[in-house]
């Protein structure tokens, strides 16, 4: 942790802290929704630690609660999580750690840790930001989920506080730097349009992957 504090400035750490706080609040609503749908506490708790990928867990809980098979729900969740493969391709080698640390470094790969890593200018700071955010999410997502499951019914609709707008806002704020490049912006907008157009017709997760077709616009 000391090396993390040395390499990222205070503002960078504050940004990561705020993102983790947002993750905690989304975790609260996730845990509360899970128990309200009839799951015992251990289901959202185990999912949040072992899967550690919010969107796929919401989907898993939703499908099983609606009477779907848990295996079908797992496959749907995997489709949503398939974007982690291109994330692994995009990260420079060494960011996720070396040797045994990489076992954990691989597990903490998520939208937030990847986007914070990409936003840093050099490999050492990419690694520091990736780990700070990854470990923060590893603490806050399960923490939020368990706390949310415990207070369950006491928690009212978290959407009322606009918390659902925080996740896209965090990601958008962090890719804005890349979007200043006209070519990247064009490709990103095209990718977003493709994903939106495909959403009504394809299972969750696929539209985002399909957005990759916009890569042809980046020569």
């Amino acid at each position, binding site marked *: 942790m000391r090396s993390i504090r040395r390499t990222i400035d205070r503002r960078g750490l*504050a940004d990561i802290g*705020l993102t983790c706080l947002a993750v905690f609040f989304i975790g609260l609503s996730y845990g509360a929704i899970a128990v309200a749908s009839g*799951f*015992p506490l251990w*289901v959202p708790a*185990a999912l949040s630690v*072992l*899967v550690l*990928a919010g969107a*796929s867990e919401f989907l898993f809980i939703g499908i*099983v609660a609606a009477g779907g098979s*848990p*295996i079908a729900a*797992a*496959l749907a969740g*995997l489709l949503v999580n398939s974007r982690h*493969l*291109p*994330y*692994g*391709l*995009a*990260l420079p*080698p060494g960011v*996720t750690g070396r040797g045994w640390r990489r076992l954990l470094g*691989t*597990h903490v790969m998520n*939208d937030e840790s*990847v*986007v914070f890593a990409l936003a840093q200018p050099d490999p050492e700071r990419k690694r520091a930001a990736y780990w700070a955010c990854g470990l923060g999410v590893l603490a806050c997502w399960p923490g939020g989920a368990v706390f949310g499951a415990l207070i369950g019914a006491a928690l009212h609709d978290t*959407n009322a506080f*606009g*918390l*659902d*707008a925080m*996740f*896209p*806002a965090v*990601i*958008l704020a*962090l*890719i*804005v730097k*890349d*979007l200043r490049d006209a070519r990247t912006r064009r*490709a*990103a907008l095209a*990718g*977003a*349009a*493709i*994903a*939106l157009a495909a*959403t009504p017709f394809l299972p969750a997760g696929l*539209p*985002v992957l399909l*957005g*990759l077709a916009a*890569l042809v616009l*980046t020569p």
Partner: protein
Amino acid sequence: MKEPTTLVVAGLAVLSAGTYAARLSGQLLRARITFPPRVARLLEAAAVILLAALVATTALTEGHGFSGFARPAGVLVAGVLAWRKAPFLVVVLAAAAVTALLRVLGVS
């Protein structure tokens, strides 16, 4: 929970193991092949495109349909603020505040 516990545990195991495999395989592929700098840049652009597509779908859709106006309006305000280099805290809180305010006013 209507489903038998063993089946839920099996689904949980499939989802966790598969997700870990997705996280690992991209890195292994990257370590095995040395990409020319141009391709490395392309891979980073791919991540930005994925993230942009994720922003669009999480801001504008819920399930297979439209999410309503409140959430995308909040994200739009956040985007404008971020473009104008507002601090991260302001950007993220503005998204939540605008969305919450619109819902108080009855805009879903």
